[in-house]
């Protein structure tokens, strides 16, 4: 029998695992351990979902504020059209005045009317250039207005998505709370149907975990040869362990059936 098999057997005997097909204390310990870990994971998931929900709510508030701001910008952009249109109308009137001055100058004849025609022509040219610049300005204003409207649409879409996300996170929180409650219920059922109390089960689970680690390390060392040196080195640590296991085993034999 190998060292590994001997140690495993001793541990199984110490933990009362020779149960002939029934659920052993070790199985129960592992069940408790799994249930506890699942419960902790569910609690963590609930906390994380709550934090994500709070972040989603903040995001939605920020998007609401951004949408309000964008709507105000769109309205302001529309407001600027009125004075710009008034400016255009005024320039159109100025152009008519210049044209009429030119016509009046022409009617006065070349000698008397020429200065008036020259001034009228110059004025008309300036007004026409101003009108062209204003039309360009109006075109750009229109483009900016369309961009603002597109921005508002995008923000509205982002708001809708943020609201959907917040709703889904709420549903996820509810589902995680259900899972947590189910795991608590599972723990209660386990305690009712188990012959091992949860504290002992926790200690057993820890012991089993350490025993598995010890076995793995000893198996690795035994493969390296020179077992005498290995045992010599480990004796101070393994001696008390063997003694503790022996005590456990004897104590179990003394227990009434």
């Amino acid at each position, binding site marked *: 029998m190998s060292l590994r098999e001997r140690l495993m057997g001793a541990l199984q005997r110490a933990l009362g695992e020779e149960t002939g097909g029934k659920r052993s204390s070790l199985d129960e310990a592992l069940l408790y351990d799994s249930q506890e870990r699942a419960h902790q994971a569910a609690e963590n998931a609930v906390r994380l979902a709550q934090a994500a929900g709070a972040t989603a709510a903040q995001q939605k508030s920020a998007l609401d504020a951004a949408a309000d701001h964008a709507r105000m910008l769109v309205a302001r952009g529309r407001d600027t059209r009125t004075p710009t249109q008034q400016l255009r109308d005024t320039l159109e009137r100025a152009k008519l005045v210049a044209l009429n*001055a030119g016509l009046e100058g022409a009617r*006065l004849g070349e000698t008397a009317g020429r200065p008036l025609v020259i001034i009228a*022509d110059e004025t008309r040219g300036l007004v026409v250039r101003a009108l062209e610049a204003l039309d360009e300005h109006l075109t750009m204003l229109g483009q900016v207005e369309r961009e603002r409207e597109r921005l508002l649409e995008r923000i509205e879409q982002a708001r809708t998505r943020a609201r959907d996300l917040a709703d889904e996170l709420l549903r996820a929180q509810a589902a995680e709370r259900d899972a947590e409650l189910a795991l608590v219920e599972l723990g209660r059922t386990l305690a009712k149907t188990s012959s091992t109390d949860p504290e002992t089960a926790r200690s057993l689970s820890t012991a089993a975990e350490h025993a598995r680690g010890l076995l793995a390390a000893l198996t690795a060392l035994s493969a390296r040869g020179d077992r005498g040196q290995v045992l010599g080195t480990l004796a101070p640590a393994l001696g008390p362990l063997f003694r503790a296991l022996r005590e456990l085993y004897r104590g179990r034999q003394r227990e009434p059936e």
Partner: protein
Amino acid sequence: MTRSDPTTTANPERAAGIVVEVGGARRFVPAGIAREIVPRPVVSRVPGRDLGVALVSGRVVPVIDLGSDREQLVLCDVDGDAVALGGLSVIESGFFDTDRGAVRVGGERVPELDVADAVARTEAALLAAAATMRERDA
């Protein structure tokens, strides 16, 4: 200030007036015909005709639309009667070089707009319509 004869200038190679754009083409209106350029007021239209009536500078004048432009009216004097031309856009005013019954504007030969003919055709169409209505009523 003494006003000269608006139909001619001292220099026969120069003409006084305005250049308008109507239906995509440029036309010259002599200063003797064109009196004033005004923003287009509300025009009460005669159904089915390019004709209307508007209040311009305190006077009720007939309006003949020559095109689709709707921003200005050119108030004209045709044989002592005031007529407003609409559907056009005034481009320039002043003196222009003459070129065989037309003027030159920016190297382009611009023929004169026959305002009297436009008025006569509108008048003839109206009279014809009135005659048709009378016949129908009889």
